């Protein structure tokens, strides 16, 4: 038995006042009055089985059709589980986002990468309405938000498993410390190109991320062999790691990482001049995908003699 949405009841009540009354005499069965799109049950059919196939453009078009269509579109937005706006920088996107922030209440996946228009004022209301269910948040290259937007994500999104903050230069050591306190169940994490984070906070952070399987630290200058050792010791489920451009790491750190992470399948280490075939050759036999091809005679880029840890700390 389906329950009626309040707007459905109003719609049906309006139909009951239409000029062609139904026949109630049971000996003379009546013909149902003509029906419209919104007569179909919203909760059982229209929202879970029609609206789920509609794009945001379709829903916003419906919002402009009629009052009932607007209520339906907003009811559909309320139940929507995923919001994909990555790369969308169209002219009226901010107005549309305000509507989504007000209507969406069940989001689990939020993709807003490269949304240069996004500010804290726009994002915070959406996070306030959806913090209980968010599982994956992608804020890569959202250059105009600040750590203020990150606060509800860190503190209140208890189900968070995927967090992407690539090129978020506003990401501070303090924010990573807060992540350490509140978010230990992350499975996928991206802080590539985040230059403001220190080595020490990364070392402490990875001690808690025991479920991590996908990690990107590309072009993060504070990633050192010490950080890789911590990842190796505590992130034993790791499968894919991106260390492109981490100039401070060496064979020592890669060796420590890969010895302790038996599930690793992908290792990206281009532009890591201190990582050589000394650490990579054994991994090629493990059938890992390594983005640097094997070159003839290129065994040791710097020294034939030893592994050595990175000799400086970056804060």
């Amino acid at each position, binding site marked *: 038995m*389906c329950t009626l949405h309040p707007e459905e009841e109003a719609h049906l009540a309006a139909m009951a006042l239409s000029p062609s009354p139904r026949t109630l005499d049971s000996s*003379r*069965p*009546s*013909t*149902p009055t*003509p*029906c*419209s*799109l919104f*007569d*179909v*049950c919203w909760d*059982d*059919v*229209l929202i879970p*089985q*029609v*609206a*789920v*196939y*509609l*794009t945001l453009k*379709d829903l916003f*078009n*419906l*919002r*402009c*059709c*009629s*009052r*009932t*269509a*607007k209520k339906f579109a907003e009811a559909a937005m309320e139940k929507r589980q995923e919001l994909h706006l990555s790369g969308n920088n169209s002219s009226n996107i901010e*107005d*549309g986002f*305000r*509507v989504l922030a007000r209507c969406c209440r069940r989001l689990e996946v939020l993709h807003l990468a490269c949304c240069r228009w996004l500010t804290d004022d726009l994002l915070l209301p959406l996070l306030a309405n959806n913090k209980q269910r968010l599982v994956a948040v992608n804020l890569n290259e959202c250059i105009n938000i600040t750590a203020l937007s990150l606060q509800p994500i860190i503190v209140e999104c208890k189900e968070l498993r995927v967090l992407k903050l690539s090129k978020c230069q506003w990401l501070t050591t303090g924010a990573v410390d807060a992540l350490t306190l509140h978010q230990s169940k992350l499975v996928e994490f991206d802080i590539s190109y985040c230059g403001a984070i220190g080595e020490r906070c990364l070392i402490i952070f990875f001690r808690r991320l025991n479920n991590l399987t996908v990690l990107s630290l590309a072009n993060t200058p504070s990633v050192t062999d010490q950080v890789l050792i911590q990842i190796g010791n505590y992130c034993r489920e790791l499968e894919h790691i991106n260390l492109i451009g981490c100039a401070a790491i060496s064979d020592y750190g890669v060796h420590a990482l890969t010895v302790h992470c038996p599930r690793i399948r992908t290792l990206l280490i281009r532009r890591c001049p201190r990582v050589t075939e000394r650490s990579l050759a054994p991994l090629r036999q493990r059938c890992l995908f390594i983005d640097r091809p094997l070159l003839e005679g290129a065994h040791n880029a710097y020294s034939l003699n030893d592994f050595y840890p990175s000799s400086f700390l970056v804060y």
Partner: protein
Amino acid sequence: MSLNPTVCKEPKFVQLQTCEGYIHDVETSLLEQMGTVHDLLMVECSDSNGIIPLLKIESRIMKLVVQWCRLVQNNSARTEASDRSTMFTELLEEASGDDKVVIQLLLAANYLHVESLLEVGTQYLADVITACETAEEIRIRFNLQNDIPSDETEEP
């Protein structure tokens, strides 16, 4: 009438009465697809003549529902969404059905719990909405009146 094998021999047809009073003889083998009717028979909810009243459904729509159930039964290997969509479109074309027929089919499918018809009908409806480029096209297609006040139109 009951489907309980300990009570009586399973009949080959069930009689369903639509809102105009017409009786439809439907093969019991199709009833597995009509959850509501199947459940009604399990608790012996037909009247004394063994006729099950379905007063929310028109005869024309009931015929299409039964035709759909036969198509699904006879094409049980064609379970891909695209195959089912093709079957649905062909059924509509044969019946010269328009969007109103699709909506009535969805109402009937929801009432009768015909899951396969709900799936294919909702996909069809979603495709129709997506094919409309503007709000005006949607209004024309589904005969919607623009009753949004102008001041609300300007708000986000």
